[in-house]
């Protein structure tokens, strides 16, 4: 018995010892609190999976509190790992308890949140007034039945990043690349004249493939939400990627499986590939992880499939929502609008994050044109290019089964077609079959 008492006595001691570590009351690294702290302020919580997104809310809270002295807010921002944040949010919304006021939801996850009755507040009153001035397609992604629930972080205009050092060595003028055929031809020159590959193909992420599909007006679902994953365009696009690897031998699977892997950053930084197809928001990855490429990278539109075809596609994204579990819906919506929809917010999207902001009106503003690290890295014509391209952004159709399509692509389809040189048509047929049979309705 003594032994057990002894054991019980140890607990408080250990608990105390354990708490000693954070007794200084420092803000923990992943939780940040902004705004006034005078007890009058309303506390709102915000969940995200991307540390960078917090900066946007930090400045928004300051602006809000300045403009609304009677309606002060404090924001508690929490960063979670990607999967965990989405799962926690899902479980919290499902059970009707424990959700934050504001949350970020990644595009391929968003559809699953629209199943059943969406547990979000409608943002129409804030979103609709700015449609004349913004790329509306990027708001449509996060809408259902006319209700706009989510606000985008960027247009995500997909572009080709060329490593000019390698292109020069290969003797290719990047402005001469207009179609994908030109691209393949240039790729052969690169492979023949340098030690680099022309391109890498992601096998665990679908940004590149989805962009090439969307560029041709196709998608994984049609406007009615019916699956079109294995339609002709999608099959021939996958075939094209496979041919780049095996027939033309100008591309290889991306090291680490995706363009977000450390292995890939190292490879690209060392001149492993002459080009990479990614959205505009990928600029930040260059400045953060591939510093050796400063001044060597130039941005051009995507090669087209035919003359006059689309030269870009809006890709990736995260929708920020206000959940219906908030006790202060008006305040939360107001703050989100300040952080995501206002002109100041759109300027901050560019200056702080290097994202292509959805509102046109800020593109020629002084703050946006002011010199920064992105202009230094990629040259100063970024917004001219963007202005040229935005009309060519197609909307993406996101459904509850989008997550399941992404999962099929990233596990089975790319692995089969790109790594194992399997038949693209069969790979996509099988995937479509799996998604259909697993469909929830």
């Amino acid at each position: 018995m003594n032994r057990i008492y002894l054991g019980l006595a140890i607990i408080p001691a250990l608990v105390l010892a354990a708490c000693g570590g954070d007794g200084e009351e420092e803000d923990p690294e992943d939780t940040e609190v902004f705004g006034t702290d005078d007890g009058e302020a309303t506390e709102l919580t915000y969940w995200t999976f991307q540390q960078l997104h917090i900066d946007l809310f930090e400045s928004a809270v300051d602006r809000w509190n300045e403009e609304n002295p009677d309606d002060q807010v404090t924001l508690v921002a929490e960063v979670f790992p990607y999967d965990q944040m989405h799962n926690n949010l899902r479980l919290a919304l499902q059970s009707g308890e424990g959700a934050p006021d504001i949350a970020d939801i990644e595009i391929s996850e968003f559809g699953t949140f629209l199943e059943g009755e969406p547990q979000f507040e409608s943002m129409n009153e804030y979103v609709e007034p700015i449609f004349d001035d913004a790329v509306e397609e990027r708001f449509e992604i996060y809408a259902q039945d006319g209700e706009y629930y989510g606000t985008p972080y960027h247009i995500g205009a997909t572009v080709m990043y060329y490593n000019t050092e390698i292109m020069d060595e290969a003797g290719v003028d990047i402005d001469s690349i207009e179609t994908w055929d030109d691209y393949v031809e240039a790729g052969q020159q690169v492979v023949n004249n340098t030690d680099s590959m022309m391109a890498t193909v992601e096998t665990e992420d679908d940004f590149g493939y989805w962009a090439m599909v969307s560029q041709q007006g196709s998608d994984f679902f049609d406007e009615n939400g019916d699956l079109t994953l294995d339609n002709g365009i999608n099959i021939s696009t996958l075939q094209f990627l496979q041919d780049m690897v095996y027939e033309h031998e100008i591309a290889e699977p991306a090291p680490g499986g995706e363009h977000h892997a450390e292995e890939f950053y190292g490879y690209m930084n060392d001149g492993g590939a002459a080009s990479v197809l990614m959205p505009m928001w990928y600029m930040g990855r260059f400045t953060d992880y591939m510093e050796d490429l400063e001044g060597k990278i130039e941005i051009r539109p995507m090669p087209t499939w035919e003359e006059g075809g689309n030269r870009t596609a809006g890709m990736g994204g995260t929708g920020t929502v206000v959940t219906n579990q908030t006790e202060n819906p008006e305040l939360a919506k107001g703050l989100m609008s300040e952080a995501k929809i206002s002109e100041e917010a759109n300027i901050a999207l560019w200056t702080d994050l290097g994202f292509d902001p959805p509102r046109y009106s800020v593109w020629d503003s002084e703050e946006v044109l002011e010199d920064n690290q992105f202009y230094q890295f990629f040259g100063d014509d970024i917004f001219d290019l963007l202005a040229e391209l935005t009309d060519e952004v197609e909307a993406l159709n996101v459904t509850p089964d989008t997550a399941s399509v992404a999962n099929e692509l990233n596990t089975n389809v790319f692995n089969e077609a790109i790594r194992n040189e399997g038949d693209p048509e069969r790979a996509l047929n099988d995937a479509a079959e799996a998604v259909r049979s697993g469909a929830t309705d």
Partner: protein
Amino acid sequence: MILRKRKMWSAIITAGFVVITIIALFPIVSLLVASFQPASVLMRDGLTFLINPAELNLDSYVAIFSEEASQYWSWYGNSLAISAILIVLSLFFSSMVGYALSMYNFKGGKLIFVLVLFTLMIPFEILMLPLYQLMNDLNLMNTYMAVILPMIVAPIAVFFFRQYALGLPKDLMESARMDGCSEFGIFFRIMAPLMVPSFAAMAILQGLMSWNNFLWPLVVLRSSDMFTLPVGLATLLTPYGNNYELLFAGSLLTVVPIVILFLFFQRFFISGLTVGGVKG
């Protein structure tokens, strides 16, 4: 002749074990080495045989003991507290149950033992969602309690204590009864002390289980100041985190408390594991 043969065999077997031990320890030594290397190089190239001595540095350790890493230490504190509470409670309850199952012949006892075996076979994961809802209803989300509660009566520990108690001398109980000891007195004063080795063994195994538990804390812990070490470390692995410096040194330091626990109880460990113990 026989002696020489014995010596030869002894040398061969010992040499074999040296090789096995090197293999067993290699990953841990690797982690030690890695914790002195730049994290970004490791993430790109993996661990290599050719280590550039000029690259070795203490940056990871500086980072982990700096103010920015206070988060890491609160994970550490959470893991320590949760494991300590869990060890004490689960040993207390599980030993009682295991003891009763082996020492008493009572109606339903066999059924309960079958239920113990049954729960032992059920992957916790299929109960996860209903349990999550239960924790939510009880308002326990994001608390130590939510992490601890489902593990408090560990079927494996019950099973183990039962096996161990089978080997205890039943006549001791009878004589204690004749001396007027209550049934609880018999357990706490007479039988439990005899089971000390099994307590030590279970303390190590339950401690290990709790210290390294991942999926359940991942689901019920919400804010990063409540995370346990495995959950916290997993957050450092995500491509959005960009905190790799903490990862390697941080991983290495997680092993320390559990090694201390092991050294502390090791004396009893083998004898404690001896299922059906107490030799005649």
